[in-house]
């Protein structure tokens, strides 16, 4: 730390820091239209000019370039500084629809009014989507631009001389309207240096210079993945969120967390008129910090508000009719009580959701106890427990101390995941950071190409089901598994053998559809690899990334079969046999999520009672006896436990609509009516109760150090390599690979809404060209993908990045249609080969 003098005050700052950051931290207003905190200065806008006493060749220096040095004397408000900034600003404004920016009457004008200065107000700030939340506007205020001589009086202005360039409104997420662009290039640098996506560039030259995407076409044809990092930094209305673009001026901000994957990025909802209208990353989570992905930014608008349930429903014959909450509750309780008294509590099973909050999961587990049934699970419970078992065998605990922030320091990382860029995008972003900034070596084990591939030191392309063999081979330094390219394998082995030691890590993300056997085998092999890399400390280097947000939390809360209880597939089988006669399903849609769709459909159809608690009329809810309308996730207070075991506070950003109730309140009411008189019915009480019951941190602790407190992390781990998992026999047909895709939200897919696949980038079966040739199909052909029993109609896309023998389809394709091609319990060793049957052209 050194001392500098800033506007006469003595300020401590670390030497070498960019002066502009220190000035801002001191609360001194300074314009810096092209600077992005933490990145190298671009020094393009020149609006950050300050007076640095004694500096050469002139005391007027750019604060974004100047680095703090001991004894530096800085003035930000001298007459000369002010004048210079104003003249710089006037150059920026020369090509901007700007007259409002220097007008003292702005607050009195409305669109369509007669403007003091010319005529009807039809453009400029007053009609701009960013009015009152615009950094360029604020910057003009800071430099008091209205005070500057108006250079345009009597002169033609370039902005009005040329027709405005064409906007791009062709995608559902990001709108680009170049007429407001001031060419600060922040977006280019955000996309390049923060995201490593490189989708934006400066194009052209001279007065034709513009921001362009990809190779100059529309945004959705470029590599852009709609993370919105460029929106966050754009100082003007040029790059904006399409949803709520015109109403995104928030009155208030609510800190929350994204519940779309287990990274649990902390986000803030901007709230206006009692609803979220915009999302910004919230730096609390030390891993996600300033970054989120398209799902975090737009998850809250994935489903139109009218598609949410605002009233509960009860069955009347073939139909579900609206009912009051009490009617629906009574119907639900009566139906469950009838089953219980006729067939015993054993005929009732309870299914939870990995997107539920801990409080909801805790109450659901209490509800199961109130009913008296041990049959509690969630669709992917078997997969989670298989991984947890493997971790316990290797590390003596599945609650390992590894945290994703360590991953940022790792030098060698093996990533075993179908597509970590799609499933846990911020992990992928941080891995790219590590490769670019610290030359980390990443090895990817996956059946398909991912956007992380270009940064990888080695890529092991395996057929689905062979991941375990590949990981074990890497641990043992063995020979290449069948089908893996020998040179790629040698590279991977080389990276692994050189990477052994304190800075190696393994990331493992199972897919829900994999099935327990496959996931367990892969987890065992991945743990063995972690031990080979890190020895006794392997428990600190094994990063398990569940697909869904709160898998770890709901497991902690007891959403798992009790003594003698049935797992999810066993529950479905028992229901098909007629042994399980009633189901309570909270916020899950097994028809979307779980393999074995045909069996699940049959089971749901045969039930005597199905009670669904959800915010959506999901495809599962259609079978219900009673549907209790719950508030959506962004209107629900609760905590979720991310992959790091950080307990995150998910805060409600809007009040419940219509007759929606809080999930906790609904579950408490059910539990209460079924005998648990003590069930806590509010979020706070529920959290107190679960903290006492499970050893979870209290809300005081969670809110006291947001996103820092971790739940139940083991203090010591062991490192016991396990026997290599049995190899999966290869078969001659195609094997299905399926996992989370980037652009589909659980909610949208769950109700099978038409716009579920927002971008339609992935709605196809991806085949290796060799397999496609053998099947006689080409890109664009529509085929039946079939296991001989069920089939799914789907278009073909040939892709060199898919392993031979693989058919990749995004899990949420067509509302989970694919799940019909997998056996109940998920793909196991004996999964039937798939065939592609070309359809005759109609």
């Amino acid at each position, binding site marked *: 730390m050194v001392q500098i003098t800033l506007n006469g005050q003595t300020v401590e700052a670390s030497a070498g820091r960019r002066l502009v950051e220190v000035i801002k931290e001191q609360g001194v207003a300074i314009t810096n239209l092209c600077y992005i905190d933490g990145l190298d200065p671009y020094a393009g806008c020149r609006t950050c000019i300050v007076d640095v006493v004694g500096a050469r060749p002139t005391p007027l220096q750019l604060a974004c370039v100047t680095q703090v040095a001991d004894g530096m004397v800085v003035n930000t408000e001298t007459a000369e500084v002010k004048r210079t900034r104003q003249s710089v600003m006037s150059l920026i404004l020369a090509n901007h629809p700007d007259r409002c920016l220097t007008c003292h009457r702005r607050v009195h004008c409305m669109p369509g009014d007669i403007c003091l200065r010319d005529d009807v107000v039809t453009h400029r700030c007053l009609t701009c989507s960013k009015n009152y939340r615009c950094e360029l506007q604020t910057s003009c205020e800071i430099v008091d631009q209205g005070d500057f001589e108006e250079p345009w009086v009597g002169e033609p202005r370039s902005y009005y001389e040329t027709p405005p360039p064409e906007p791009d409104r062709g995608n559902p997420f990001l709108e680009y309207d170049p007429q407001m662009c001031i060419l600060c290039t922040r977006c280019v640098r955000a996309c*390049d240096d923060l995201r490593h*996506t*490189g*989708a*934006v*560039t*400066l*194009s*052209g*030259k001279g007065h034709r210079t513009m921001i*362009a*995407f*990809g*190779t*100059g*076409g529309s945004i959705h*044809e*470029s*590599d852009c993945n709609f993370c919105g990092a460029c929106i966050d930094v754009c100082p003007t209305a040029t790059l904006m969120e399409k949803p709520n673009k015109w109403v995104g001026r928030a009155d208030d901000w609510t800190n929350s967390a994204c519940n779309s994957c287990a990274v649990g990025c902390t986000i803030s909802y901007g709230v206006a008129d009692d609803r979220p209208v915009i999302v910004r990353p919230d730096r609390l989570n030390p891993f996600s910090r300033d970054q989120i992905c398209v799902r975090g930014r737009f998850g809250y608008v994935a489903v139109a508000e009218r598609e949410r349930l605002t009233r509960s429903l009860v069955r009347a014959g073939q139909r579900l009719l609206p009912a009051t909450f009490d009617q629906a509750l009574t119907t639900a309780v009566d139906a469950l009580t009838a089953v219980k008294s006729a067939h015993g509590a054993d005929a009732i099973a309870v299914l939870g959701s990995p997107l539920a909050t801990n409080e909801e999961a805790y109450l659901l587990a209490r509800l199961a106890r109130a009913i008296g049934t041990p049959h509690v699970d969630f669709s992917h419970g078997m997969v989670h427990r298989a991984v947890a078992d493997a971790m316990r065998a290797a590390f003596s605990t599945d609650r390992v101390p590894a945290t994703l922030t360590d991953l940022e320091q790792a030098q060698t990382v093996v990533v075993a995941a179908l597509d970590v860029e799609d499933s846990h995008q911020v992990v992928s972003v941080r891995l790219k950071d590590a490769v670019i900034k610290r030359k980390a070596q990443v090895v990817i084990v996956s059946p398909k*190409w991912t956007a992380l*591939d270009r940064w990888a030191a080695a890529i092991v392309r395996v057929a689905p089901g062979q991941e375990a063999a590949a990981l074990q081979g890497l641990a043992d330094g063995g020979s290449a598994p069948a089908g893996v390219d020998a040179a790629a394998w040698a590279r991977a082995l080389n990276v692994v053998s050189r990477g052994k030691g304190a800075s190696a890590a393994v990331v493992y993300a199972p897919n829900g559809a994999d099935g327990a056997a496959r996931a367990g085998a892969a987890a065992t092999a991945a743990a063995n690899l972690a031990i080979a890399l890190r020895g006794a400390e392997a428990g600190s280097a094994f990063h398990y990334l569940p697909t869904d947000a709160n898998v770890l939390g709901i497991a902690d809360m007891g959403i798992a079969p009790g003594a003698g209880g049935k797992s999810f597939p066993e529950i479905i089988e028992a229901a098909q046999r007629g042994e399980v006669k009633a189901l309570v399903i909270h916020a899950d849609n097994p028809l979307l999520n779980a393999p074995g769709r045909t069996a699940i459909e049959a089971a749901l159809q045969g039930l005597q009672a199905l009670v669904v608690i959800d915010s959506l009329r999901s495809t599962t809810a259609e079978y219900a006896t009673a549907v209790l309308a719950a508030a959506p996730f962004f209107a629900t207070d609760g905590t979720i436990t991310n992959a790091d075991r950080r307990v995150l506070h998910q805060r409600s950003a809007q009040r419940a609509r219509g007759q929606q109730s809080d999930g906790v309140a609904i579950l408490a009411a059910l539990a209460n009516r079924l005998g648990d008189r003590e069930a806590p019915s509010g979020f706070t009480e529920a959290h107190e109760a679960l903290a006492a019951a499970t050893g979870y941190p209290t809300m005081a602790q969670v809110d006291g150090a947001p996103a820092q407190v971790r739940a139940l992390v083991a203090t010591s781990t062991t490192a016991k390599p396990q026997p290599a998992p049995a190899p999966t026999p290869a078969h001659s047909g195609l094997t299905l690979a399926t996992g989370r895709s980037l652009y589909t939200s659980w909610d949208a897919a769950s109700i099978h809404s038409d716009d579920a696949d927002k971008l339609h980038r992935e709605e196809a079966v991806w085949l290796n*060209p060799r397999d496609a040739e053998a099947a006689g199909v080409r*890109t664009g052909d529509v085929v039946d993908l079939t296991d001989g029993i069920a089939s799914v109609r789907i278009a073909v896309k*040939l*892709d*060199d*990045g898919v392993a031979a023998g693989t058919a990749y389809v995004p899990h949420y394709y067509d509302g989970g249609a694919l799940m019909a091609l997998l056996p109940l319990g998920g793909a196991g060793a004996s999964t039937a080969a798939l065939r592609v049957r070309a359809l005759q052209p109609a």
Partner: protein
Amino acid sequence: MPLETEARAQIRALVAEFRPEHGDLLAAMHSVQHHLGYLSSEAMEVIAEQLGLFPAEVYGAASFYEEFRFTPPAQTNIRWCSGPACRLKNGGGIRDAILATLGLHDIPGDTEDGRAGVILGQCNGACELAPMVWLEQPSTHRIEFVGNLNAARAVRMARALRDGATIEASIEETKRA
């Protein structure tokens, strides 16, 4: 990951000799444009792959230069000299005459049927022929200069090209009295 189609393989062969971080970008773009007449999106993607860049970086660089184009070229290009000697001898009038004859507004521009286009040229030292243009056929790499133009001759030449005449025939037109 995009499929290695024949078109991609062809482009890849054109840029195979170029390497990342060797200042090869311009050379790679020239190679593709020389052989294929323009830089397609696909070509920019392949160049990016070859040189370890993002496609947007390739486009950003290419769009800086007047010379690179992103749509297939016209059958015959009129490269209009924008140099000082030609300008002094009414090059501007020649340009306007040609553009008007072809129904174009600006340089660069192509007629709708793709028969003729006008692109920007720089002085190449043949100023004794000012004002001049070059006629170029991208498919054969044939280049002919047409010098000492005046508006009437330029119009006849452009009209011939517009109507599908060969380079020879168009030049003949300029020689008619």
